[in-house]
């Protein structure tokens, strides 16, 4: 039995109610409290991670920048697909991101999903960030499949209002404000913790 089940348990497709899942190769988030909760010990590789945030400027990028700073190298950039605003170079450099390996794709909502899928599928990017506002489940599923085929990390940044929508993302984290907390809504390969994680210290 275990010969069949072991691979499934290892790659997180199957998980048990009790006990800790084996640590897999994941990208550390840079926040110990969050790493401790996520089954792989960080953002899952070759999958989508979803950040749900209520409004601009509540720390959605501060959550991602420590991880992004460790990515990006020649011929394998971090790609922002249709970001809502322009990244302020001074702040990104201060966060440790190497701007040489940051690429921005400027496009409209419809083409953005196509561009994000191309980037994820191509395996030419270290990570892909996109901001789908009204993506349907089929589109999200395509993105998840593209991330798996291309072995690329994808981050979806979406409004909290979409939390009720079904999602294929491997990890879903909601940002709550006042007090600032992170709530893990879903994490493939483990039970989401019942308690929210304090985000206030990180926001300083």
């Amino acid at each position, binding site marked *: 039995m275990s010969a069949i089940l072991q691979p499934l348990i290892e790659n997180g497709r199957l998980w048990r109610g009790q006990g800790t899942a084996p640590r897999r190769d994941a990208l550390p988030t840079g926040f110990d409290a969050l790493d401790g909760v996520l089954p792989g010990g960080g953002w899952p590789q070759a999958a989508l991670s979803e950040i749900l945030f*209520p*409004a*601009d*400027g*509540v*720390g*959605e*990028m*501060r959550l991602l*920048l420590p991880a992004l700073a460790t990515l990006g190298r*020649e*011929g*394998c*950039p971090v790609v922002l697909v249709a*970001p*809502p*605003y*322009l*990244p*302020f*170079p*001074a*702040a*990104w*450099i*201060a*966060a440790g991101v*190497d*701007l*040489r*390996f*940051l*690429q*921005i*794709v*400027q*496009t409209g909502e419809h*083409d953005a999903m*196509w*561009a994000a899928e*191309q*980037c994820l*599928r*191509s*395996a*030419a*990017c270290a990570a892909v960030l996109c901001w789908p506002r009204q993506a349907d489940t089929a589109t999200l599923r395509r993105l998840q499949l593209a991330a798996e*085929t*291309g*072995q690329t990390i994808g981050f979806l940044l979406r409004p909290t209002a979409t939390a009720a929508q079904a999602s294929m993302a491997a990890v879903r984290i909601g940002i709550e*404000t*006042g007090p*600032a907390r992170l709530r893990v809504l879903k994490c493939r390969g483990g039970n989401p913790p019942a308690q929210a994680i304090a985000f206030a210290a990180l926001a300083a």
Partner: protein
Amino acid sequence: MQWACISFPQLALDDVLRQRSDGAAPLVLFEGTGSRARLCAANTAAQHHGLHFGQSLTAARALYPRVHAVEHGPAAVERCHDFLAAWAYRYSSQVCRTFPQTLLLEVRASFRLFGGWPALQAELRRELAALGFEHRIAAAPHPHAAMVLAGARDGCAIEDAAHLLDALGTLPVGRSGLDVSCVESLQRMGLRRLRQLFVLPRAELGKRIGAQALLHLDRLRGAATHALDFYQPPDVFDQRVELPFNTSSHESLLFPLRRLLRDFSAFLAGRDGGAQRFTLAFEHERGAPTEIRIGLLAPERDPELLFAIARARLERTRLREPVCGLRLVSDELPPFTPARRDLFDTRPQQAVTWEALRERLRARLGEQAVHGLALHPDHRPECAWRTRAESSRDTSTSRDANVPPSLPPRPTWLLTRPILLRERVERILAGPERIESGWWDGADMRRDYYVIETASHQRAWAFRPADDDGPFMLQGWFA
């Protein structure tokens, strides 16, 4: 020296056939107009219906009314010959295209690179078959001998002079490249094989057949040399395809487009270059052609990549009239540097390079759609950044200049045009920070910047003009 001769027995016909997707349909070429139009070539399917060289077009149409007849253009054949010379330049630096329907290549110097004549010949044949040209190939120590052998014995290769005389000797006089009247008189004298000519005393033979024919025989044997004009590849690629029918459907343009780009790629490989910029012109019966200008960030020559880009651009273009011809022009042909790949590349199978991905995105989203970002040393937030469009292959230059550490923190997101801060201000976390700069370039500003927490716990970077109590203007988010 070792000369390879490639002869193209039906160059004009191949030139037309390879541009059509229905190559097996009966097709004839004709020259002349009206009732004087005569066939000058017919493909196998047309010959099957009884059409042949020299027939009048009227007769051909009577025999088989559905035959496709295309006017034979000597200029088109010349262009095709030029293209083949450019292609052959990849295999030898000495390419001669002086003789009609024939290319001569000095190949001995290329043996080491291509692994000897059998391998080189196989490569030539494979490439020509892919390009869609009927061909005959022979090799000999002298150019004229190679030409005669290519006409008589396809695939024949002779290395040394003794074997060459034997091989030439067995050829009938009629296949030796001598002119018709000379061949006739020789045959009347009972001389049927070249061997018989070679043993005759040279001076007496010369009196009978003339100096010109004697010179030709000397050149065959290598006793006289012929100064050949060598081909110089042009710095411009300009090729045109005439469509067999007028069409405004994108689908039916893809086949000629792919053919054109494959030729382009072969040409680029021949000069070890890439294309950075090229223009596709879709010609209409009336009016100016619809042009698509394609610019790439780095030189490329992979036919599939070029096709994918051109196709994406074509699909977004509206053709206002049916297209009757297609033309590709490129005069910017920089040297090509292949992308570096790891020997132990562990990336997935379908992986493409970032360069290829970027071109694909730009083809669909527009030339300016993909860019990098760089810090610009300026205190004004609107001027503190620059887009960076250059190829990421060149980014090995120094890392960005560091931010002056004394500055207060800057927001992650920047609004390039400030807007009115609509959210209710809960409290001011930091500020004011006065930014006053730009008196020298007309974009003068005096602003007091604040870090603000709004009622919904967002963190904003907003300003007020100095000495003003007006509303806050939003400049960025501490996201």
